[in-house]
């Protein structure tokens, strides 16, 4: 079932007259637009509402929040060690759960709509398939943004609470010390706790999740079940983290046989480089992220997300429904 014929038609409603028939301007039929942000917005809101009603979403979010929150009780170490572990665990949890959420939420979008038959109702209306997919992916991206914001807020709250506790402990322990020494100690505690590079790190975690959502949407356009999509995405996730090694190996001409060279080339060309988005490990370790690096990584993330969404639309246009 396709709606290609509807694309450039005028919407007409029974009982309404055309302008030449002296009809009221407010009751006139609006001309059909080939691309409507309003229609995409409606699908986006609907998708977001649908996803937020899913139990799995709350399960993942609560589990992530518990993990972030519990990291402050994990180990009684020195304050530098504590902050290092707290940040590592929290950002790691954010990375895992946003990726999981992106894959799980997107994998069920099209199969669920086919199963519920809502896809037929939507596409029977003059809604192009591209708009349908854009609305769906925008809903997932919005959900991921909310999830990342909530997790980020909890993470900063835990970090702040731990920092304040340590500031009070330090002040109590150094009550008799000179003012300068106290200030130096407090500066050290604060410097270990908050690092402004964490924020771009969180944005990159979100971009990685967006990329995974777009890729999942692409896979789900030719998959028949969401289980198949999730399994394929799990493989892609691992291969994507190895892509950089395959690429370098292929381009440096280390490999011997042509079969392995072709294999490496296929891996390097088809899969995204997911290691490029794993910057938080080094950010927590104290490596500063420059604006140029952040911008380049963000551009790559947006590039992948756009490409996979457009490819998904291309496949979806040819899909028999």
């Amino acid at each position, binding site marked *: 079932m396709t709606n290609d014929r509807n694309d450039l038609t005028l919407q007409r409603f029974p009982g309404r007259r055309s302008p030449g028939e002296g009809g009221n301007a407010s009751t006139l039929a609006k001309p059909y637009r080939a691309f409507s942000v309003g229609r995409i917005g409606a699908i986006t809101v609907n998708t977001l509402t649908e996803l937020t009603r899913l139990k799995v979403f709350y399960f993942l979010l609560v589990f992530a929040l518990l993990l972030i929150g519990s990291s402050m009780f994990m*180990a009684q170490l020195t304050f530098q*060690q504590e902050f290092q*572990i707290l940040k590592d665990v929290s950002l790691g949890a954010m990375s895992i759960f946003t990726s999981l959420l992106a894959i799980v939420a997107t994998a069920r979008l099209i199969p669920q709509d086919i199963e519920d038959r809502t896809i037929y109702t939507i596409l029977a209306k003059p809604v192009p398939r591209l708009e349908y997919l854009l609305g769906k992916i925008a809903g997932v991206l919005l959900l991921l943004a909310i999830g990342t914001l909530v997790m980020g807020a909890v993470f900063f709250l835990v970090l702040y609470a731990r920092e304040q506790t340590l500031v009070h402990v330090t002040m109590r322990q150094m009550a008799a010390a000179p003012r300068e020494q106290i200030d130096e100690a407090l500066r050290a505690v604060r410097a270990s706790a908050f690092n402004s590079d964490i924020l771009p790190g969180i944005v990159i975690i979100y971009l990685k999740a967006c990329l995974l959502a777009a890729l999942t949407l692409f896979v789900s356009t030719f998959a028949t079940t969401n289980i198949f999509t999730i399994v394929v995405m799990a493989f892609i996730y691992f291969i994507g*983290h190895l892509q950089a090694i395959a690429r370098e190996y292929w381009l440096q001409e280390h490999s011997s046989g042509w079969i392995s060279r072709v294999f490496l080339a296929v891996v390097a060309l088809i899969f995204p480089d997911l290691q490029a988005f794993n910057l938080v490990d*080094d950010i927590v370790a104290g*490596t500063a992220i420059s604006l140029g690096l952040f911008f380049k*990584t963000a*551009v*790559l993330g947006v590039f992948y997300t756009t490409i996979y969404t457009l*490819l998904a639309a291309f496949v979806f246009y040819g899909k028999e429904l």
Partner: protein
Amino acid sequence: MIRGLLVLVILLALGALKLPMERDLAAVHRQEHFRGVEFNLDLREKIGQLGFIAALSGFRSIVADGLFIQAHVAWERTEWGRVLLLFQHVTTLQPRALLFWDMAAWHMAWNASVAAMNDRTQPRLALRVKAQREYFALGKDFLERGIKNNPDRPELYEALARLYKEKYKDHERASEFFGKAAALPGARTYDRRFSAYELSYCEGREREAYERLRQLYDKGEKERLPTLISRLKVLEDKLGIPQDQRIPDSKSLQH
């Protein structure tokens, strides 16, 4: 079918388009000290299959933290061999975390070396001293590798200087590394001073030490700390500095 083939062709064409972008980004990452870990068979053997998969999936720091906590427990049980092994894994996984290099060196050069020296199961002093020196060397090795991975940060240079000073009593090397730390951005204010103090203990380099200490002294009240004044006094006597060029006595300074 045709559409599927077309998708594959588009994917390959876009792959060729993204390749320079990815390579450029990877080069910037390396330049800015990201992607410092080589994922190879050596790493897999070190951290095991599960840890390797986790590290590959982008959870390198979490695996490193888990191993670090294990190392902490091993330290509490004084299992020094295990502490060494775990810290080798931790530092391999997180080469940019200064804390791990510093802790590893501290456990080896300070804790394990003392434990080796006080080992009651080893009656021969020569063997206890040998074990102690081996732990010093392990601590030094951690710090040297840490510096190799983090040449832009002063903390490990300072830790290595402390190790040379306190464990090897090598004032010349201690002065050199305090000096290297002082030259880097973010160095502590005392690094320059400590470099000069250590140099003042080196036979044959008293003149150089005197000039550096004098320079610091002339910078103003903030640098005129008791150790600096006492080292300057020692060097003035040793070098026979004329009375009119010497710094005033601390008593007269107070007046």
